[in-house]
């Protein structure tokens, strides 16, 4: 049997993945997003093509796939659940839109929420660290962080006062690879404690590839009114600097006469 390439797969369905996932793109049925866009723009596509959206696509690429699929329909369809969007950037606490890793959050039950994983291949936690075919654990941890941040901002923290989110603890278990394919995150609130310096949340986030549970991340984090957090940090920083200066002065202090080396 001749060696197959991703491009010689059955034309019925392909999965678009960011070009950077070179190792993963050797898998039949995957296509670099730049190739797919070139073919959609030229109209050089087989009839009845279904496009699955994998990971690594930028907002611009997603938008263009959506527009081209609309124009070429019904020759081209995007597989359910369609072209994903990203969560509102402000809610994730990221300054750069390309660093948003999740889609909009929906509530699925009492204190339970879900979101899609929607990675841009230019995201900061992938840009300098991509080994093999899978999405690195550190990227999934950041996706989880954004997820709990959006859940809390959107559903639990009300009022105009500025706050800071501070992580108390994070524990994670990785059961199987997350590849650059469709994946979802689920949030379950385990405990919420109100304190005089802000609420403390304990949550469990699970990451799923279809029916497979890929990862579980348990986190405890506090939402602190900003003035308390600023003051706490200021006090701690001054203390740390003072301690370090004391250490440096002790290091460079001249030896006592009795300590002179013979």
């Amino acid at each position, binding site marked *: 049997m001749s060696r197959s390439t991703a491009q010689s797969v059955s034309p019925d369905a392909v999965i678009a993945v960011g070009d950077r996932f070179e190792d993963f793109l050797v898998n039949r049925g995957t296509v670099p997003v730049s190739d797919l866009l070139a073919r959609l723009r030229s109209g050089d596509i087989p009839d009845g093509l279904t496009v699955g959206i994998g990971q690594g696509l930028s907002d611009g690429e997603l938008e263009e796939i959506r527009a081209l699929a609309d124009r070429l329909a019904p020759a081209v369809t995007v597989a359910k659940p369609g072209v994903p969007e990203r969560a509102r950037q402000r809610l994730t606490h990221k300054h750069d839109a390309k660093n948003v890793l999740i889609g909009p959050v929906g509530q699925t039950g009492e204190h339970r929420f879900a979101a899609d994983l929607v990675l841009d291949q230019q995201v900061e936690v992938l840009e300098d660290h991509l080994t093999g075919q899978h999405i690195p654990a550190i990227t999934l941890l950041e996706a989880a962080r954004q997820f709990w941040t959006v859940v809390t901002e959107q559903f639990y923290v009300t009022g105009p006062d500025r706050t800071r989110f501070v992580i108390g603890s994070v524990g994670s278990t990785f059961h199987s690879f997350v590849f650059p394919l469709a994946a979802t995150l689920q949030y379950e609130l385990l405990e919420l404690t109100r*304190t*005089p*310096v*802000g609420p403390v949340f304990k949550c469990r986030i699970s990451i799923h590839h279809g029916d497979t549970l890929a990862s579980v991340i348990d986190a405890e984090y*506090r939402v*602190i009114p900003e*003035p*308390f*957090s600023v*003051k*706490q940090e*200021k*006090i*701690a920083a*001054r*203390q740390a600097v*003072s*301690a370090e200066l004391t250490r440096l002065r002790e290091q460079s202090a001249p030896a006592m006469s009795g300590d002179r080396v013979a």
Partner: protein
Amino acid sequence: MLTTTDITATVHERINALLKEDGKPVRLLTGDEPLARIGLSSLLLARLIIELEAEFGADPFEEDYVISDVRTVGALADAYVETLANLAAAAA
């Protein structure tokens, strides 16, 4: 002008108010209590300092003191006494 007694009483009162709000036991403070052991986390301490700044118009930890300078409740109250005295002297 606030006396040492006034300042100390306010510091004790604010500490106990925070402890009560946090569901911790309150007690008659003498000043000998180690600050690290009365139940104030670093965040609660930050809130205490903010509230005392609102009360007194001064924060000893802005420039004159670092937190390790004040090991006891009494030392904390003394930090405010001294800072306020210095401010009053500077204003005179």
